């Protein structure tokens, strides 16, 4: 899992430290839901480029 505190501190400018704490549970939950989906992607998985992709 990503170390969000470290990531937030490394940004230029960094996210103010007092505000980082409240981001952690949300970002952890989002990452936990997103990574398994990401792992389902293959080399053939192209990017969405517009409504015509729905066809």
């Amino acid at each position, binding site marked *: 899992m*990503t170390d*969000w505190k470290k*990531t*937030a501190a490394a*940004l230029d*400018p960094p*996210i*103010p430290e007092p*505000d*980082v704490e*409240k*981001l952690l549970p*949300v*970002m952890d939950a*989002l990452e936990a*839901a*997103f990574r398994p*989906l*990401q792992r*389902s*992607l293959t080399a053939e*998985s*192209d*990017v*969405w480029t*517009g*409504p015509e*992709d*729905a*066809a």
Partner: protein
Amino acid sequence: MTILKSADALRAKKVSSLELTNDTLEKIGRENPRLNAFITVTADVARARASAMDAELAHGVDRGPLHGIPFAHKDIVYTKGVRTTGGMKIFENFVPDHDADIAISLERAGTVMVGKTNLHECAYGITSTNPHFGAVRNPWDTDRIPGGSSGGSGAAVAAGILPLATGTDTGGSIRIPASFCGITGLKPTFGRISKRGVMPLGWTMDHMGPMTKTVRDCALAFHAMGGPSTDLSSTDIRGLRIGLPLNYYFDRLDLEVSESVRTAVQTAAALGARIIDIKVPDIDALNVIGRVLLLAEATTVHLENLLTRRADFGSDVVTLLDQGRLIRGSDYVDAQRLRRIYIREFSKLWSEVDCIFTPTTPTPAPKIGQTTMNVGGVDEDTRLATTRLMRAINVLGIPALSIPCGFTKSGLPIGLQILGAPRAEETILRVGAAIEDATSVVGRRP
């Protein structure tokens, strides 16, 4: 009065556009202190415009059903010479030097703009409790939110101030206030209505659309905004295939919401529609994809102001913008790759059904300031719960209509969401009109 009734009255010379406009301005004066639905009111300009529209009609120039009809823009739509705040302190004195495409389209249709409606700050939230311009209140219960982000538009239409207001929808911002306020809201197919001149939030998920009291008014406004004409002279839905999801959409709902939506399904069946049980693709996954996309896109939109004027944003918006700074570029691209897969997966449903019925929101309107809610025995964050049946639809880009389908015992409106295939707005408007005609929900007033 609806657009249709006003249009008839105008042509029968029973009323003038100036009288309609003065009546609207009087209602704003009376209701806005209670609802805070408007940020800006353009009374003098509106009266002059209404007189000009009356003069045109008197000289035989008829621009169509919206000619002379008072309406309001969500205050995120560029209006030349009229300040456009986006609900943000940063733009509190911003006056555009040009109109948005949608403003041009509605002006060409003969409408009379009376003002700009309040909204959630930069359209990034569902409460419309705006820290800079004050909280918008729900006309059905002023202790409750109207939903958002197009909350002022929803409250103004529901209160009978206006028959039409514009909205934008990036994760439910038209449909949520339509549901909470008991009105009709259409999020058209992605790209169908021009967004040029509308302050963006998420470029690949922003949609423009109308918010009205009735489905027929919604169809007229959609056409005036640049959508195709919809013939609702017949609302025969016999044989139409309506999908009813067996998974996800009815899993965790307020009981009264579930009952009202299922009653609407029975109404459609009684009108001759075929109800077909379906299994929808993973909506939780689509919601996660949508959140990754929106966090990154919204932060990109507002990054410069976030870094230079952080204190001028409300705390809820700052938190979301900070989250967006933590999204990696590769994660954003992967979310767009996943989006393509799920769009194709979902599109297979359109060979089985013509439209899909779901609740619009899992609950009726929460209280102002309520940050968590218990839905079906589970405590949820109010924002995430309210967008849970919405956000995936913005990722898919398909059209969605919200219409009122009932009320709770305490008198709060309940919304039915009707989903259609890409560019199938006519189908969902026809189904919505059929349901509306068969019930008496729309006639109820706050």
